[in-house]
């Protein structure tokens, strides 16, 4: 294979070859190469197929703006990544890459038939083509679209890599390390300010890395770069982050950075995270993002071998790679001439420079003549040929009056184009900073900033090296000054720099029918100039609409190379100036970012906090199945070997009803309410009356929102006159405490009462069953457990198993029950003691499922399951819990609103299915007449439904419109395949007289 590498040229380490594969073929590149430069060095231009038309594509650029060269990379099992831009992917030994978006092979692709059917895929084809017949949608259109859509293939196995995250704070954050960014970082760094300098590339330098002509301060650009790099490294107050992309700029100078830590390493350390997401809060930000070259829009501008001239120059100067042996330049900007000159000087035969402008400055003409390069100024390009690589270019003269003359064909193997340069204003745009249209340069420039930020260099429309250095230095010094450091801008002397200018152009003039030309604007989404004109003809006038209709700028590159061309063509078609047509908003991330980086540490066990009770370890060792309840994981049931869930729950229920069960209730929210006004505060927060509750007694408390709907409930103990032990639902703990604090701080600051969360201070063991008292009597000290001294709904402090306890006599099962609160670190040991001592009673640990069944048998509600934020106390049958004599409590006033008193409100009822073996599905909808036509009127839904072992049948609770008045009626529950019938009954299914509580 011919090598296109020029020995001794470029910055890659030509002494260090690396082997990699592309589509199974093995290639050799050098350390410092990107996949793009290494393939180009091997003469490979064909890198993929386009999205819509499956047209062969090559490398358009040499940077992160690349729309075409997307590849799949394979770093081993589970480490496949689609859509990696070959132009930024660093090669290393053993790298495996594949092209994408084609079948069966890159060179012969069936999907390329789309190219011939282009009329089907014109602007708005998504909206037009697949409209009818309706029946085709599910079976024909959708599968085809899904099959054809998307770039690359998603990985199918979990990502084995880990990701990291880090917060940082600095005085000055500099984004971009080209000349402006370096100058800014140097001056900010010298001031002593804490500086972070980031660049997406592997090495600092930006455009300097591709620049070989100009010198700085009497040195070559590269010598100066080396010095700047060492100077920054020597400053302890400066952090330099390479391979780090500033992906988003958020409020108050928060900038997100994605740092790639290991992708470039052939053998990364096993434990090393792949990427790190930085969240940097900067006092001042300097944006020196540089600029992106604009393609020219002409028929066939997407053939492999057609690329941006500046990128060709980068491949040559930075990587030592010539992109062809016979390139033609087509341009409307001086900068492309430099590419021609550099190539010619490197010994490449430049076939011609075609400049759209009739007049080009004399010194360029002279240099071209000196190098023997033919110049065609005032010419246009009207087509290219070559199936998998450009083979010739069709060029025509354009007269002063704009008439396109007859064509001439020039053979070439690369076509290097330039339509000028577009400042990268992406991050500035993230901040909603104002953009000013520059008509002369056909570009948007950063205007008034909304954040403490400055733009410098090409990203600010300042393209010359000398001016960029000066502006960068000024920005760095000013930023440091604003951050409180004495700083001074250095001055720079630049030699050998040419003043470069360009002209603006739309689609290049042509002698051919423009309504048939495939002149691409957006290469990644295959949008052509005629698509944009069609969209305008069809009535779209705003760029936001044109963008969505044509999909221009909507691909993964966010239109980095296409937005301005698209805007210019749209602006001409709409016949309004560009700023009136508008620029679409750039949004983070600047370049595609892995989900892993965003997830950071939060995956696997650290995905979310998993709260575990002090007794959780015992449950795990004893075979519990768990279920998540808010952030907690709770023991769900304790199956014996080979036991089904159904059997386990039935066994656990039976044991509680017949002898003794133990349950870990530690997750209950707990709040200690202390102060002389504690009872008054309770009166205001809960519906119940607390004034007369004696110390040592418990009461069920019901809490409403101010809207009158049930928010929470729990059993509350009065320990002393001034001290309450409040329990809340597991999921409601933080919410209830927040609501209490809110009222206390903002409505009733005069009350002398204070709140403390004690949820995690106490482990709670619920003992339930006829043998509960027998078990604890010998273990408890300091509390008389007799029914007279310690009746149902009592609380006392004493000791159990030798540790302090707050003992509640309370039941959520209808059986004799206790809730034993012990300091959390003793929870497990007390549990184990009780379990050991309870063996004589066949003590059975049970989980949340059995708890749910037992409470449902008693008709006790679970807030959040039987209620949903629209249920009043009366709806839930809890009217008795309202202290009617109280003048006020949170939510009281709402209870008399007309809507809250309607007879057809959904009310909580019990259901007994006609077939006792049918356990209804929770959430199932209820109808009164099953034979009505669809859609049926739904009058409510099942909230709780279980198999009751005690009753030998199923039971359910439901909310039904006017439910209480329907007791005795039959309702219907349509489910797929079968409609069940059930009778409306009261909510208490078991022991309605509560005899067992005091047994």
């Amino acid at each position, binding site marked *: 294979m011919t090598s296109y590498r020029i020995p001794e040229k470029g910055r890659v380490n030509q002494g260090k070859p690396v082997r990699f594969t592309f589509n199974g073929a093995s290639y050799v590149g050098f350390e410092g190469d990107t996949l793009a430069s290494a393939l180009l060095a091997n003469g490979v231009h064909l890198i993929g197929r386009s999205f819509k038309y499956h047209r062969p594509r090559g490398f358009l650029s040499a940077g992160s703006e690349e729309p075409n060269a997307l590849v799949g990379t394979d770093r081993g099992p589970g480490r496949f990544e689609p859509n990696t831009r070959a132009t930024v992917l660093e090669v290393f030994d053993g790298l495996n890459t594949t092209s994408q978006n084609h079948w069966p092979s890159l060179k012969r692709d069936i999907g390329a038939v789309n190219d011939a059917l282009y009329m089907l895929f014109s602007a708005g084809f998504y909206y037009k083509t697949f409209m009818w017949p309706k029946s085709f949608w599910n079976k024909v259109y959708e599968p085809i679209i899904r099959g054809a859509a998307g770039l690359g293939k998603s990985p199918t196995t979990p990502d084995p890599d880990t990701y990291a995250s880090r*917060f940082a704070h600095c005085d000055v954050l500099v984004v971009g390390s080209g000349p402006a960014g370096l100058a800014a970082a140097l001056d900010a760094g010298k001031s002593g300010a804490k500086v972070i300098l980031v660049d997406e590339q592997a090495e600092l330098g930006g455009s300097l890395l591709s620049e070989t002509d100009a010198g700085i301060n009497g040195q070559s650009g590269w010598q100066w770069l080396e010095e700047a790099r060492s100077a920054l490294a020597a400053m302890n107050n400066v952090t330099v982050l390479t391979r780090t992309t500033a992906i988003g700029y958020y409020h108050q100078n928060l900038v997100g950075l994605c740092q790639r830590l290991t992708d470039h390493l052939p053998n990364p350390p096993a434990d090393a995270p792949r990427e*790190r997401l930085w969240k940097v809060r900067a006092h001042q930000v300097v944006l020196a993002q540089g600029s992106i070259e604009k393609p020219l829009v002409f028929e066939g501008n997407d053939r492999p071998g057609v690329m941006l001239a500046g990128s060709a120059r980068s491949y040559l100067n930075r990587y030592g790679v010539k992109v062809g042996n016979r390139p033609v330049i087509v341009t409307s900007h001086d900068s492309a001439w430099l590419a021609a000159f550099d190539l010619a000087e490197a010994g490449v035969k430049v076939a011609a420079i075609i400049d759209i402008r009739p007049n080009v400055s004399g010194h360029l003409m002279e240099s071209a003549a000196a190098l023997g390069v033919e110049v065609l100024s005032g010419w246009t390009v009207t087509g290219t040929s070559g199936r998998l690589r450009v083979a010739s270019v069709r060029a025509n003269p354009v007269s002063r009056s704009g008439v396109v003359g007859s064509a001439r064909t020039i053979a070439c193997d690369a076509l290097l184009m330039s339509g000028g340069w577009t400042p990268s204003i992406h991050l500035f745009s993230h901040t909603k900073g104002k953009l000013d249209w520059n008509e002369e340069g056909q570009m948007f420039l950063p205007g008034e900033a909304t954040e403490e930020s400055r733009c410098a260099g090409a990203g600010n429309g300042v393209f010359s090296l000398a001016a960029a250095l000066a502006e960068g230095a000024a920005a760095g010094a000013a930023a440091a000054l604003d951050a409180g450091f004495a700083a001074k801008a250095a001055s720079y002397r630049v030699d050998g720099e040419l003043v470069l200018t360009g002209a603006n152009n739309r689609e290049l003039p042509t002698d051919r029918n423009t309504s048939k030309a495939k002149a691409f604007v957006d290469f990644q989404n295959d949008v052509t100039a005629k698509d944009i004109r069609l969209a305008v003809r069809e009535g779209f006038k705003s760029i936001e609409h044109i963008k969505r209709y044509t999909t221009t700028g909507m691909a993964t590159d966010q239109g980095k190379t296409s937005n301005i061309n698209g805007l210019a063509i749209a602006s001409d078609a709409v016949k309004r100036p560009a700023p009136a047509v508008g620029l679409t908003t750039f949004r983070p991330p600047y370049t595609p970012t892995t989900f892993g980086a965003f997830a950071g540490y939060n995956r696997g066990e650290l995905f979310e906090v998993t709260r575990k009770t002090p007794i959780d370890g015992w449950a795990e060792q004893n075979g519990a199945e768990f279920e998540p309840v808010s952030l907690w994981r709770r023991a769900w049931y304790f199956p014996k070997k080979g036991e089904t869930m159904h059997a386990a729950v039935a066994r656990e229920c039976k044991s509680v009803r017949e002898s003794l069960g133990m349950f870990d209730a530690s997750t209950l929210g707990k709040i200690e309410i202390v102060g002389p006004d504690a009872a008054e505060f309770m009166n205001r927060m809960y519906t119940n009356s607390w004034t007369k509750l004696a110390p040592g007694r418990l009461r069920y408390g019901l809490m409403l929102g101010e809207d009158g709907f049930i928010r929470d409930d729990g059993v509350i103990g009065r320990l002393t006159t001034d001290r309450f032990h409040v329990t809340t639902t597991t999921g409601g703990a933080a919410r209830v405490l927040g609501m209490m604090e809110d009222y206390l701080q903002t409505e009733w600051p005069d009350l002398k009462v204070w709140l403390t969360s004690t949820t*995690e201070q106490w482990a709670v063991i619920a003992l339930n069953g006829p043998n509960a008292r027998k078990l604890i009597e010998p273990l408890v000290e300091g509390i008389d457990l007799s029914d007279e001294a310690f009746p149902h709904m009592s609380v006392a402090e004493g000791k159990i198993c030798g540790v302090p306890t707050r003992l509640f006599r309370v039941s959520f099962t209808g059986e004799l029950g206790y809730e034993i609160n012990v300091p959390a670190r003793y929870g497990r040991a007390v549990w184990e003691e009780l379990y050991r001592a309870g063996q004589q009673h066949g003590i059975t640990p049970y989980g949340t499922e059995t708890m749910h069944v037992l409470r449902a048998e008693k008709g006790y509600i679970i807030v959040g399951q039987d209620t949903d934020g629209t249920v009043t106390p009366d709806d839930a049958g809890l009217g008795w819990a309202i202290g009617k004599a109280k003048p006020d409590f949170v939510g009281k006033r709402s209870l008399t609103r007309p809507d809250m008193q309607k007879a057809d409100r959904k009310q909580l009822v019990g259901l007994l299915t006609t077939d006792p073996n049918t356990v209804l599905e929770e959430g199932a909808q209820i109808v009164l007449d099953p034979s009505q036509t669809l859609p049926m009127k739904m009058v409510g839904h099942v909230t709780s439904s279980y198999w009751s072992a005690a009753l030998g049948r199923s039971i359910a609770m439901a909310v039904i419109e006017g439910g209480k008045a329907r007791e005795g009626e039959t309702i219907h529950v349509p489910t797929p395949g079968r409609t069940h019938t059930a009778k409306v009954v009261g909510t208490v299914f078991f022991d309605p007289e509560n005899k067992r509580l005091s047994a």
Partner: protein
Amino acid sequence: MLHEHHPLIGREIAVRKVTPLNIRAVADGARFVLRIDPAQAAQAAKAFGSPLPGKIGDVTVSKGRLAVRLGPDEWHLVVPLTEQEAIETAFAKLYATVPHSLVDVSHREIGIAVEGVAAMLALRSAIAFDIGGMPVGTGCRTIFDKAQIILVREAEDRFRIEVWRSFADHVWGILDAASREIALGI
């Protein structure tokens, strides 16, 4: 007394490379949440037997007693276990004249010491505020990843985390991951 179970017992993270880092559970003390009208804080300090910090975010350490002022009317107190009863008694006495709330939260929290040159770097993996700007001898409640903690800067390179026990594993897991990066120097 029965055996005490503790989520972090016996666990330690140690990085002895270039940037030493040591993370471990601290010995348990008695902990209280004191809530009192700030105008009466002086009387509370008398009952506490040590000064209480006067500014939100300030910390006092005296005779092995740590006090962090978390809010206008809230102090987090950590004292040696042997002093628990005496302090409870003193505050009970104070209550008659100066109503307040003193609640035992000894078992609610786990203390974690993060110490070493890389301590701040480890914490920056999950704490959003500028720890570098946190003076020694201050403390505050904040968020560590998704867990609420109290962070106290005890010395230039030594921090103490107080975290609810069921969140301790999560905090530990992230410190563990961050310390692996520190060990690798990556």
